[in-house]
């Protein structure tokens, strides 16, 4: 009986299912199995970790932003006389429009939070060091793209908040030496924000930035696969070897759980605090005190200090400080050449990270208190 079952004649009787045929068809043409093996069988030194989920979560959030953004574009009209009304229409009349818009709005905040979390993880793990310098620099470029996404998307509802945040933002950019005037004129398209500004921000938001993000994310992933994961910064060689695992299934499982959690968090925020527009954009701010999105509040509050008043102070605060900070981040892997990755043996790095986080939290809270004071 057994010999009969295992005979070649019986094996040849096996008829592949439709799915197996489809897989074989694709495999023959595009090398599906090889691609799958390359993507999933990446060894992770020290095994899977929750700390490694942020990159995958960022890709997931971006995919959801593309999906919700596309749905919103079916109803949104990017003209100065219809943008506000069409956004109100999405909120009040389109089926589930209020939720889709809320998800898109909070998704942008989640993206910024996850980028900061991902960067912090890479910094604390010392994963920017040789041979991952290029990976770090491309990551910084992606941070810039994500922030620009937030800035350009903020104008689109065309309410007072959008109009004045953009006005202040463009004025800050205007202070950049040499190219500042050109950038400001290019973005505004006129002396004050108007139809040209909205059109330009819309094109940047839905065409140029997504293309840039996809290209940079692809490059980031390529560099990640070339350099290989850095692994944990603690543990003996024996421990790391014992725990080393492939990307599939454990890390994929963790990534999926992380994505589900982020999805639930964004949904909860969209349900709890839906988008509410202010009055339609007008050249008179009235009682409204202009301020940027919450993740820029710390910087906005920093610029309110007397230290950054006056022509020179404004230049220092609006241009020199952020440019110097970004330049330091770009140069970091080339300055810090010590191969030590354990954050507890890198006191300067640890103290710097804590100091930056404290400043961000402190000035964000101060900005909220300042808003209450102004109101």
């Amino acid at each position, binding site marked *: 009986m057994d010999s009969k079952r295992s005979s070649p004649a019986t094996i040849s009787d096996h008829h592949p299912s439709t799915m197996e045929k489809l897989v074989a068809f694709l495999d023959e043409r595009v090398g599906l199995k090889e691609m799958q093996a390359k993507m999933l069988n990446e060894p992770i030194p020290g095994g899977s970790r*929750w700390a490694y989920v942020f990159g995958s979560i960022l890709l997931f959030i971006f995919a959801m932003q593309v999906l919700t953004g596309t749905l919103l574009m079916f109803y949104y009209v990017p003209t100065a006389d219809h943008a506000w009304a069409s956004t*109100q229409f999405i*909120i*009040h*009349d389109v*089926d*589930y429009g*209020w*939720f889709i818009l809320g998800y898109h709005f909070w998704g942008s905040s989640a993206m910024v939070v996850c980028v900061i979390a991902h960067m912090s993880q890479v910094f604390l793990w010392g994963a920017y060091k040789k041979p991952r310098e290029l990976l770090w620099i491309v990551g910084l470029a992606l941070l810039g793209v994500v922030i620009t996404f937030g800035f350009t998307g903020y104008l689109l509802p065309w309410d007072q908040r959008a109009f004045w945040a953009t006005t202040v933002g463009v004025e800050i950019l205007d202070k950049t030496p040499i190219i500042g005037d050109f950038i400001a004129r290019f973005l505004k398209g006129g002396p004050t924000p108007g139809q040209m500004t909205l059109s330009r921000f819309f094109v940047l938001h839905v065409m140029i930035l997504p293309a840039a993000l996809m290209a940079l994310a692809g490059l980031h992933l390529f560099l990640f696969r070339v350099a290989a994961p850095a692994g944990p910064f603690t543990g003996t060689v*024996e*421990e790391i070897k*014992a*725990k080393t695992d492939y990307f599939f*299934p*454990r890390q994929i*499982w963790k990534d999926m*759980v992380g994505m*589900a*959690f982020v999805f*639930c*968090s964004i*949904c*909860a925020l969209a*349900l*709890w605090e*839906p988008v*509410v*527009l202010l*009055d339609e954009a007008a050249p008179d701010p009235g009682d409204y005190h202009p301020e940027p999105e919450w993740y820029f509040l710390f910087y906005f*509050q920093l610029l*309110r*200090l*007397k230290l950054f008043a006056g022509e020179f102070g404004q230049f220092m605060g609006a241009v020199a400080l952020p440019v110097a900070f970004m330049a330091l981040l770009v140069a970091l892997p080339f300055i810090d050449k010590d191969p030590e990755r354990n954050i507890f043996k890198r006191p300067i790095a640890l103290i710097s990270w804590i100091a930056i986080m404290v400043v961000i939290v*402190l*000035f964000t*809270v*101060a900005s909220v*208190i*300042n808003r209450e*004071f102004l109101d």
Partner: protein
Amino acid sequence: MAEERDSMSPTKIGFSILWSACWTGMVVKSVFVVLLLTMGLVHFEGRFGLAVVMLLISPVTVFAVPIIMAVFGAHFGEGIGIEILFWLSIPVDIWALGLVGRTFFLERLRKEPPDGLGLAIWWRAALVGAFFLPALWGAVSFVTDNAITASHAMAEIESLRQIFDNGLPIAERIGLELTIWGTISSALLIGLSLIGISIFGQIIRRISENCKPTSENYQGLITRWDLMRVPTDQGLLLGSLAGVGVVMSLVFWTLLPVTTPHPHDCCKKPEVQGEPVFKPAEALNKNAQRLALLTAQVEAMEQQKEKGKGKAEGETAKDSSAKTKP
């Protein structure tokens, strides 16, 4: 290595288990939160972040929340959903503490985890939390309130007025005050939290004292705790998870309000009264009738006018003949 395991501080033990258990449980709880919010059963208030911390992040806060609400009058929100979340959190926390605890016992302490470890950790931790967290809440609130008052007073002292013409500028003043009271209350919060985590770690250590050491090598232990987390039948796991995901998605979209449940006064549309339907034949008839009516009225008025004129002429003639009589 064995010495290092024995000398592990209670704070480190407590933090290792609590941190992982919080995140393990929170993923499951977040699904419940979304469904409860979709059903409109939860209405969190301004202290949403705090409510999330209390209800979701920590398995040790389960009994502390109602005590804080009762003793200090703290109000996190409205709705039956908060009570449902409270009851749902209990089995989730027991499961999360059990999973993380067993892993920790095998990998870090190299000891055989006892049966019912999750429940054993949970009830002890919840009991300690019920006393410790309200005390922490009260202490931090008291110190923060006083620190805010003191920082206001410090920002108004004369020496600062002398440095700046009109006292400290607003942004600097807010920053200074926040730094003063924020540092004091954060230091107290961190200090008391570390004490709480240390107490939690001592509970774990006491439980582990009665456990037998494992006889397997490190690779064997890793395989054991790994198999606790990832079942051998991954197809079944993936299938059941996908099924749960589909059911949850269907429930979510069924419950989600089609139009915004948050209409705002600013955006209410003015009530538009429908215009009557235009019927050409009726309109023509109506106009013709009206014209006829108006024509008749005008004719009647003209006739009345003529009659009045004739009467007046007759009366004038009568008067003149009377005057000419001798």
